[in-house]
């Protein structure tokens, strides 16, 4: 895993520019919670001045891995290489807590077990008092959180789309990588993706063998587990004849399009090139063709870090939304919503602060609905509004398009 | 009499030593000469024992080191136009007249810098710069006769401060003769320098108490293409302040000058200038804007409109340079005209946050009434700066109540967050009041620093600190 982090750290000029964008640093002002600080810690590790300690682990885990710092770094430091090395260092040297380890190593790679685990918990979730719009505490997937999370779906996305709906003369044939959140919770997003694409005369396959993308394990430095998952996913998707692979999850796109290049090596390149975020895909392949009747709602867009800061995708989702609604921009659309991974568990207070800011930006925009391209962000932002008795709805932008799409033009002949 | 006692202090031997070192022709001990260097524009007087008029840094250095050896007070002097007693040799000793060191050493148009000797008259420098289409902004009312050395020593402000800042902002480098006669160079003739501590600005505004400035390098700006001037008369101060607010706060126009004058001042200048002043005028604003042709025309008409909106009684826009001069004549004659009202004047020159001007003026006029003493206010209102003149006729009793009034006023000023002197300096006139503004330990620090440079206390003793 340690490609060349040891030399990568030397590239950092210690200029401090990462201060300007790091969502965690902007909240705390702690030098230990920004790339520059962590890079210097990595240097110290390399130079054997320090060893792995609880404190160090905390500092490593306090990175959201949003990669926004990398986008401004004038010295071109590939911070991801460094943070990944630190994460796996933590994992190797300090181990991974038992429960996640079991989940990463034994359950995630086995769909049946995962399904079973969640099914059990979806049964017992009724034991937990229901609060606020059908949301529940403690989804087992985020086993340590203190968070409000939507109830589990009765039937997972994979189960729903076991069979591919055949089109007569499809323009393209694409595979959908669902990702865990969509598979188990936001099945409606998957439905929207399939529906929209079908109506655009694109056949959608949902390969059944696919597994978790591996982000949860990478986040905790367990790159071995990630590799296992990646191997399976590679096999599953390569065995299909697909023109493209789409996802509706920004984090999954980052994982399978970008991270797998490191996990799996250059052999993944040709597949990687075919992976798209759903809006990106639509904008690229159907942008001029589909017709809409914009819904009568003000919709704003939140940029998921993993889409904007990792991939620079910002216009495409907006193009889709502009065609589908009365689009309004919010200030700080690219600011992190605070959601995601181990960070929300360790730094729940910071997560909340980021969320508060996000919610305030959305409110200022005057939008009725906030759309985004990541189920993680949907979950986080909905959480922010849940307690507030707010009328503002949170949704995936594909669901807006689904409502606005008119069956004419390319999708008429269906 | 004072001069006799002082005279005894400088022994013949020292006198000879001085003459040897700097030439007999530059050392004056006749009473006529000494009287002529005994005062400044505060009208305060104290006759020095000797007047020395050096022509070079070396002569200054020699004078100072001899004075230092013999513990003789030295009072540097520019044009003696100061308004806080800075160049009055209140402890006798040597009046060091720097007016003979008045060369513009080099003006480097490309570098936007000029180096001058301290005795150069401010206006002369400005005129010289203008020949190169350059501009030295600080413009005290006394620019026509005060010296650059005096300006730097007082950190003079002036009419253009609103837009261009004060003298300090233009000083790049100094040659200084220290109290032991040694010569140092501070700063750099570059537009920027941060090497080491900022000795340059530390000496700016030090009022001749730390050393004698013998060469001064200043920064210049390109000369604005055009200046436009509006005079606007108002019924009362309230309207003036409203107009000011709408010009600079609401509309963010950034005039070159924004001068205000109150009713008493208007009474004093009425008739002394060409401009006819409306009968009911209780205050005026004189506004300069500069920039390019179009900008100026635009700003002037906007400002005029804003004045009218705020119930100006009359506005005049200068169309020619002569008209402009005529308008400024009115403003410039204020200070001297006040002597028409009474023979004595105490010149307060405070500055408050601009939003507090209304409040402080109200207090001041009330206090004037309480003490039955006339007060006249004018000043650079855009910066919250007020020249408050307490006008009175000489007399023991009067002196006492004037003193009381002044200290009352300054107390109010400080209370409101203002400063007791914004451009005239402390000198001896305000030395007793610095405790109002500065904490005892801060004054101690300043005194200690003074001692560090001038352990024997020969440089302009009796100033700033009492």
């Amino acid at each position, binding site marked *: 895993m340690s490609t060349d982090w040891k030399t990568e750290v030397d590239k950092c000029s210690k200029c*401090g*520019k990462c201060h300007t964008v790091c969502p965690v640093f902007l909240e705390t002002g702690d030098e230990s919670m920004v790339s520059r600080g962590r890079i210097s810690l990595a240097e110290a590790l390399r130079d054997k001045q*320090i060893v792995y300690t609880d404190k160090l682990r905390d500092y490593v885990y306090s990175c959201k891995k949003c990669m926004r710092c990398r986008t401004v770094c004038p010295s071109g430091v590939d911070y991801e290489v460094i943070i990944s090395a630190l994460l796996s260092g933590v994992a190797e040297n300090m181990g991974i807590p038992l429960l996640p380890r079991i989940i990463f190593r034994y359950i995630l790679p086995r769909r049946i077990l995962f399904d079973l685990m969640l099914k059990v918990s979806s049964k017992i979730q009724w034991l937990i008092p229901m609060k606020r719009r059908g949301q529940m505490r403690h989804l087992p997937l985020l086993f340590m959180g203190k968070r409000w999370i939507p109830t589990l779906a009765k039937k997972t996305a994979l189960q729903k789309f076991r069979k591919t709906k055949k089109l007569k003369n499809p323009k393209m044939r694409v595979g959908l990588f669902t990702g865990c959140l969509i598979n188990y919770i936001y099945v409606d997003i998957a439905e929207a993706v399939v529906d929209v694409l079908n109506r655009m005369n694109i056949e959608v396959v949902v390969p059944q063998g696919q597994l978790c993308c591996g982000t949860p394990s990478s986040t905790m430095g367990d790159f071995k587990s990630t590799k296992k998952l990646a191997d399976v996913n590679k096999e599953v998707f390569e065995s299909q004849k697909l023109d493209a692979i789409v996802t509706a999850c920004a984090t999954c796109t980052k994982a399978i399009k970008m991270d797998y290049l490191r996990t799996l090596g250059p052999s993944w390149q040709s597949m990687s090139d075919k992976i798209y975020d759903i809006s990106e895909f639509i904008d690229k392949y159907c942008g001029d063709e589909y017709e809409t009747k914009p819904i009568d709602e003000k919709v704003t867009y939140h940029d998921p870090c993993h889409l904007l800061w990792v991939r620079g995708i910002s216009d495409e989702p907006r193009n889709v939304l502009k065609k589908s609604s009365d689009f309004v921009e919010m200030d700080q659309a690219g600011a992190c919503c605070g959601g995601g991974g181990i960070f929300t568990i360790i730094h729940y207070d910071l997560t909340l602060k980021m969320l508060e800011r996000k919610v305030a930006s959305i409110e200022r925009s005057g939008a009725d609905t906030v759309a985004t391209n990541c189920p993680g962000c949907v979950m986080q932002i909905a959480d922010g509004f849940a307690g507030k008795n707010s009328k503002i709805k949170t949704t995936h932008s594909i669901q807006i398009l689904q409502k606005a799409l008119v069956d004419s033009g390319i999708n008429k002949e269906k | 009499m004072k001069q006799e006692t002082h005279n005894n202090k400088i022994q013949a031997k020292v006198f000879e030593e001085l003459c040897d070192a700097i030439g007999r022709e530059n050392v004056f001990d006749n009473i006529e000469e000494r009287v002529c260097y005994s005062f400044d524009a505060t009208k305060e007087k104290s006759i020095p024992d000797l007047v020395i008029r050096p022509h070079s840094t070396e002569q200054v250095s020699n004078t100072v080191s001899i004075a230092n050896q013999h513990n003789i007070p030295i009072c540097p002097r520019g044009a003696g136009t100061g308004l806080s007693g800075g160049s009055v040799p209140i402890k006798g000793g040597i009046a060091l007249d720097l007016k003979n060191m008045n060369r513009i050493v080099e003006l480097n148009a490309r*570098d936007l810098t000029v180096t001058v000797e301290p005795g150069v008259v401010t206006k002369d420098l400005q005129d010289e710069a203008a020949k190169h289409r350059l501009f030295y902004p600080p413009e005290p009312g006394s620019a026509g006769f005060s010296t650059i050395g005096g300006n730097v020593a007082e950190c003079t402000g002036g009419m253009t401060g609103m837009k261009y800042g004060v003298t300090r902002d233009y000083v790049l480098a100094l040659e200084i003769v220290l109290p032991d006669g040694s010569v140092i160079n501070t700063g*750099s003739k570059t537009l920027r320098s941060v*090497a080491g501590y900022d000795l340059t600005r*530390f000496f700016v505004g030090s009022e001749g108490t730390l050393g004698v400035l013998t060469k001064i390098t200043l920064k210049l700006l390109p000369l604005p293409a055009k200046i436009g001037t509006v005079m606007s008369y108002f019924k009362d101060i309230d309207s003036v302040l409203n107009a000011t607010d709408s010009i600079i706060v609401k509309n963010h126009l950034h005039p070159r000058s924004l001068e205000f004058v109150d009713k008493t001042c208007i009474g004093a200048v009425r008739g002394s200038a060409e401009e006819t002043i409306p009968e009911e005028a209780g205050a005026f604003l004189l506004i300069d804007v500069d920039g390019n042709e179009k900008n100026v025309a635009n700003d002037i008409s906007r400002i005029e409109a804003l004045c009218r909106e705020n119930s100006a009684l009359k506005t005049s826009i200068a169309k020619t340079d002569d008209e402009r001069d005529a308008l400024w004549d009115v403003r410039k004659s204020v200070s001297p005209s006040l002597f028409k009202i009474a023979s004595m004047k105490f010149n307060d020159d405070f500055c408050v*946050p601009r939003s507090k001007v209304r409040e402080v003026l109200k207090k001041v006029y009330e206090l004037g009434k309480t003490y039955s003493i006339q007060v006249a206010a004018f000043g650079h209102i855009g910066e919250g700066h007020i020249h408050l003149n307490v006008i009175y006729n000489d007399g023991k009793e009067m002196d006492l109540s004037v003193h009381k009034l002044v200290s009352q006023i300054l107390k109010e000023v400080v209370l409101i967050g203002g400063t007791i002197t914004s451009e005239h300096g402390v000198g001896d006139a305000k030395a007793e009041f610095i405790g109002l*503004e500065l904490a005892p330990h801060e004054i101690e620090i300043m005194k200690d620093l003074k001692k560090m440079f001038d352990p024997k206390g020969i440089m302009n003793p009796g100033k700033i600190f009492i």
Partner: protein
Amino acid sequence: MKHFKKTKTESKKHQKVLNELIMVLGGEKVLSAIEDRICYSYDGTKQKALPDIVVRPGCTSDVSNTLKIANKYEIPIYARGAGTGLTGGAVPLMGGIVLDLKSMNRIIEICPEDFVATVEPGVVTKHFQDEIAKFDLFYPPDPSSAAFSTIGGNVAECAGGITGLKYGVTRDYILALEIVLSDGSVINTGRKTLRSVTGYDLTRLFIGSEGTLGVFTRITVKLIPKPKKIETLAAYFSDRDDAIDAADLIIDNNILPRTLEFMDQMTISAVRGYGEAPIGEDVKALLLIDIDGTEESISHELPVVENACKEKKAFKTKVAETPRERESIWAVRRSISPALYNIAPHKINEDICVPRSKIKEILQKVDQINEHQTIYIANFGHIGDGNIHVNIMYNDDPGQAALAESIVNKIMREVVAVGGTISGEHGIGNKKSQFMELEISPKELAIMKRFKGFFDPKGIMNPGKMFI
């Protein structure tokens, strides 16, 4: 190095200091774990030195108490803003305590009517500029690091920046300071009024003192109305001297642009690819020019500036049409400093300032000094002020570091010989203290040291900086 924890008694002292700090400030403001100390061990020079303790004060009295303890035990105190300094100012060379002032980052008040504002030192410059922009006000000092450096650090270094030609530097905007002195006492200098000349100008004495005289805990600044409009123009030259001539001609035309930035060929090659519009290989020098003012003044000045560039043989000029284009032009400029590491891994950053008429001469000298070209020198900077950042880039090969040092030495001598200064805006720190003597005579140096001795008799404030 004087790490006070080295010997046995010293280590006792260390524990005592730590305990006392924790007692007075509370545990959460006092960090002593190695991980934390590492994160406060460096600045923008890439130098490193480990502090023993990091204190994160929340208010003036925290700072005062820390200094009292440090003074009692004679422990070095290193004030630190964002650690973006380019001369090593915030690096705790002798260990001791790093005082991280980023934790004091409140804007205390903005008074739009008075054109003043008061801030704590840890406020990030750009953040402050954005806040006052809401009132249509403007705080001009604008170092390229404005988005991440602190106002406290700016004041301590007397930072300049790209707007200096027209608007001056940090010094010109500071009205009043609250300062904690080395014995923990607190003084207030200056006044919150636009003018004040009461007593000596301690404010300016402390500006640029690089944390060696005291710690700023409150800063009152002067504001001015925000210019209504800004236009940006990039001019491309095929000859360095042409660019310099063009800069001269613009100013000769009586125009002071808001910014007038110069980049030479080596600099351009380092940042090539950073902006949206790639810079062609034939570009040997670049001027980036901002003009601000009103609609009318800009419509007058912009053509004059553009023509001046053309007259001096700019082969292309480009006026930014959208805010985005403008931003992208300036993003390139702001990335220079770190992007230079693309040329070579090591950099000596000189920040010379010469009279403008001497720029050509000094650049020629720099060329001559480096005639063998085994080391790369990139020049860029605020050409209107004569402030050029001369960056000497070298790699790990044996002898290169020494060669670079000797080149720096020669350049510094030339700079002083033409009447220039060794530091236009970055300060002295420890990186340039060895050159102080070139510019500053022993007499003046002695005076500065007396100031230092006066305010900091025990030598605990930022030891190892400014003087050697």
